[in-house]
């Protein structure tokens, strides 16, 4: 019994010792550092939800990025090299995101576009920073800035900008002071809540009502009735498209007639469809990309988009298009640099895009203005 035990122990020890000895010679995983070869295609990753609830955002972003890359490739690529877009599905799950961050690092991608969900991007950021892969995201949460990664860039404004512009319009321009808020406790809603409250506070305005709902709440009678009793002049919404639509629909049913105000989600067709077209009339929207008719560039973009994908362009596609353009410009100016050099090149890029004029600061934010529009006759038009 004992001798067999000893023998077993000896075998085990040997089993342990062998790999340890091997490990001493060479650490496992010596495959890293196979830097981008200077020929062959330039590999860029697009990480976004291609499945799950956020997959429509992912699909739009993919189209925007694809459009930009196809334009460059048609024009001969960069330094004669074609650009290859690898598409990865994060399923809207941050853990999957962290896996993908490692995957694109190990497969030699030099830059990443996406994701549309701040939580996923935040989860990926430390790994991308360690791997020195610049990332241009479509998220807008102030939390992205708080990550303080020199490799993380935003292709649009943060909630702070959206809501500062909105507060300025509502309070300063329109002179509305009786403002009620209804926001959800999800990542997006919470960012909106904090940013808008801050912008109001800077103007000495306190919301007359501040209701928080859960991200999957369906009935808002309690919150909306409380708001109705306070007789606000405008109601700020911080929630995603569908939930915002439900809130507006129920508010109208409860006899609330005042306009709603919000950021990008309130400018989308999904919001209008869910709420009912009549119900969203007069909604005030703060967005860097109000519609495809905003400028000559956007008209051109929308036409190309329509021609390629046979559907109307919208904001997320435009954001990804801008972000990809910035990345490709930086690659061109830096002679296809990678790592820190590429990040520096992006930071130095000035680009007049669909969303406005990009010029990045140290926080990775490149644009600090949005436009105000209102929904009139079912269409989002720039406010006069």
């Amino acid at each position, binding site marked *: 019994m004992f001798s067999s035990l000893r023998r*077993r122990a000896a*075998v*085990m020890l040997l*089993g*342990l010792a*062998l*790999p340890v000895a*091997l490990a001493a010679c060479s*650490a*496992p*995983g010596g*495959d*890293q550092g196979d830097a981008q070869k200077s020929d062959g295609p330039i590999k860029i990753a697009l990480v976004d939800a291609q*499945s*799950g609830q956020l997959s429509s955002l992912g699909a739009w972003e993919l189209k925007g990025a694809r459009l930009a890359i196809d334009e460059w490739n048609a024009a001969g690529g960069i330094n004669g090299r074609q650009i290859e877009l690898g598409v990865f*599905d994060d*399923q*809207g*799950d*941050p*853990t999957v995101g*962290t*896996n993908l961050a*490692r*995957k694109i*690092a*190990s*497969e030699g991608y030099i830059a990443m576009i996406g994701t549309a969900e*701040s*939580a996923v991007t*935040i*989860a990926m*950021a*430390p790994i991308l920073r*360690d791997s020195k892969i610049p990332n241009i995201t479509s998220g807008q*949460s102030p*939390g992205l800035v708080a*990550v303080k990664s020199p490799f993380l860039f935003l292709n649009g404004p943060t909630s702070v900008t959206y809501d500062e512009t909105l507060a300025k319009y509502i309070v300063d321009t329109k002179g509305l002071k009786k403002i009620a808020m209804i926001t959800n*406790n*999800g*990542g*997006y809603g*919470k960012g909106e809540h904090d940013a808008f409250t801050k912008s109001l506070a800077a103007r000495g305005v306190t919301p007359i009502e501040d209701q928080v709902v*859960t*991200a999957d709440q369906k009935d808002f009678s309690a919150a909306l009735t409380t708001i109705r009793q306070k007789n606000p002049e405008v109601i700020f919404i911080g929630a995603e498209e569908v939930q915002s639509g439900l809130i507006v629909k129920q508010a109208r049913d409860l006899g609330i007639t005042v306009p709603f105000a919000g950021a990008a989600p309130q400018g989308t067709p999904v919001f209008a469809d869910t709420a009912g077209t009549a119900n969203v009339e007069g909604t005030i929207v703060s967005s860097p990309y109000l519609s495809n008719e905003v400028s000559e560039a956007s008209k051109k973009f929308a036409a190309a988009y329509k021609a390629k994908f046979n559907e109307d362009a919208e904001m997320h596609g435009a954001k990804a298009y801008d972000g990809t353009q910035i990345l490709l410009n930086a690659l061109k100016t830096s002679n296809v640099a990678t790592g820190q050099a590429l990040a520096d090149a992006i930071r130095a890029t000035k680009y007049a895009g669909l969303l406005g004029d990009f010029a990045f600061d140290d926080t990775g934010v490149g644009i600090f203005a949005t436009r105000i529009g209102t929904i009139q006759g079912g269409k989002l038009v720039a406010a006069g």
Partner: protein
Amino acid sequence: MKLRVAGIAVLAVLAWLLPYQLDSYLIHVANVVIIFAILAIGLGLVMGIAGQINLAQIALFGVASYATAILTTRAGFGFWTAAALAMLIVAAIGLLIGTPALRMQSHYLGIVTLGLALALTNWVTNAHIAGGAEGITGIPAPALPGIDLRNDYFFYYLELIVFGLALAFGLFVVRTPLGRKMRAMRDDSLAAGAVGVEVPQLRMTAFFLASIYGGVAGVLYAGLIRYVAPETFSIANMFLLLAMVIIGGRQSLVGCVVGAIALSVLREVLVDYPTYAQVAYGAVVVLTVVFAPTGLAGLPTRARGLLQRWGWLRRDTGTPPKLGDFRPYDTVERPAEQVILRIDDVSMHFRGLKALQEVTMEITAGEIRGIVGPNGSGKTTLFNVVSGLYRPTAGRVWLGERDMTAARPHTLARAGVARTFQNLRLFPLLTVRENLLVALDQTSVLGNWRYALWQPGVWRHDRALRRQADELLDRFGLTAFADAAPGELPYGTQRRVEIARAMARRPRLLLLDEPAAGLNGEEVRQLSEIVRSIRSTGVTVVLIEHNMGLVMSLCERVTVFAGGRVIADGTPAEVARAPQVVEAYLGDSAMSEDVPVATPTEAKR
């Protein structure tokens, strides 16, 4: 045995060498897989081993990662300090989530654990301290002297060691008293209570164990990903984990691990088609429960069975083992004549049915009492009242001087009441030896501290129990069947196993419910010998029996039941002559006169 050791060694070496084959991404995948495997072991323990539905395992995992994240980033603790505190927190939450299991089972437990899991997710999504929906970034990497655990390769070895320990501990639990009791409770919680298993406390223990595994996995996760967010602990991931355990085979911890690895790999292979992966694993879950309830772990057994049926594999055709002779106990002096069991005016009503009506009887220490009566006259109900399965509608039950009316089955078992069941309630998935071992173990749930602090103590205790079991097997002539599943044994042998199991506790009072049902003549003779020997050690025996020959020859006194009442009480001869008894049985008092009455000792069979 040698083969198994060699297999384990080969697997260990392969696992140790695995990183050399993996690139930096795949090693990360491997790290995540190991975490899921640890979680699956925990879920396997609570669901497969202890039989408690737990849909909050992912939430426990989340609690530990969040606790680690909050304690490191907000409170500034070091990683390992935070991890230790997180384990305490998750254990407390595990006990909390397990509390409903004291009151409810099955789907009730399912919805309540699911609800509590959602409540926890809701809390982390809201609480400022938990970072809301964006979660918490910047968890410091765990540090070990000289090893950089930010490196996924080194983290792999850390995980591998923890996983090895976790699996070994899990298997250790399953094979030692605690796990045996949990398996017994899963197979038949009623019978488990009757042999002294503290069922409610054991359910809590199962949840506690699951929470420890959830905690370990959660801490590792926090150290690996260094980021936590609510989505990771979603219901979808809970169902994925459940699928791993079901597909792998919930009753085998190794099966759970295999399931976890298989599904994780499948998910990775189908990473670009997550929806189809979902269809695939959902469908496999359905097919598994319908066609292979034991999962992947049960496949070898099923395959062997199939091959045998097709004639490709020879059946084991040695001579079937034979039931040995019973070795009588040493006789001790008969205890003083005192009342050991007093049933005082007990009534038991079920809705419209009055199963027992004002039953009063006394049983003297050291006697063999027969309880007879037509079907449905309330005999088994009386046993159920005495052994604590039912709480009587009225009346009291006294064991010696103790009022046991409201006692739970395990309390009664620990006070010296043992019983068998009319329809045999052996634990079907335990071997014969394990059936006895469950009953032999007298330690209380609190005695399980040894599992945490002094495992050699457990080991030694288990060895002692096994010696006792061997002695008991030998005494009852069951040695040849020690490792067989009870269901494979002849009926008469199963009956004997049940009596041996009841005797394992060295009871003062043994209740036998129709011990001779289904036995042939020779077996009945052996039974009567066994019962006499048991009595000769000072144990009081009460038996319900329809085999009147046995009752007449064995019992000193007989109590006759009819319609929930005691209609006669006396020596067998007296009772057999009593007109009300004859009427109750044959329905005809006239028949009692024209037949000569034999003396009890003459009766044979």
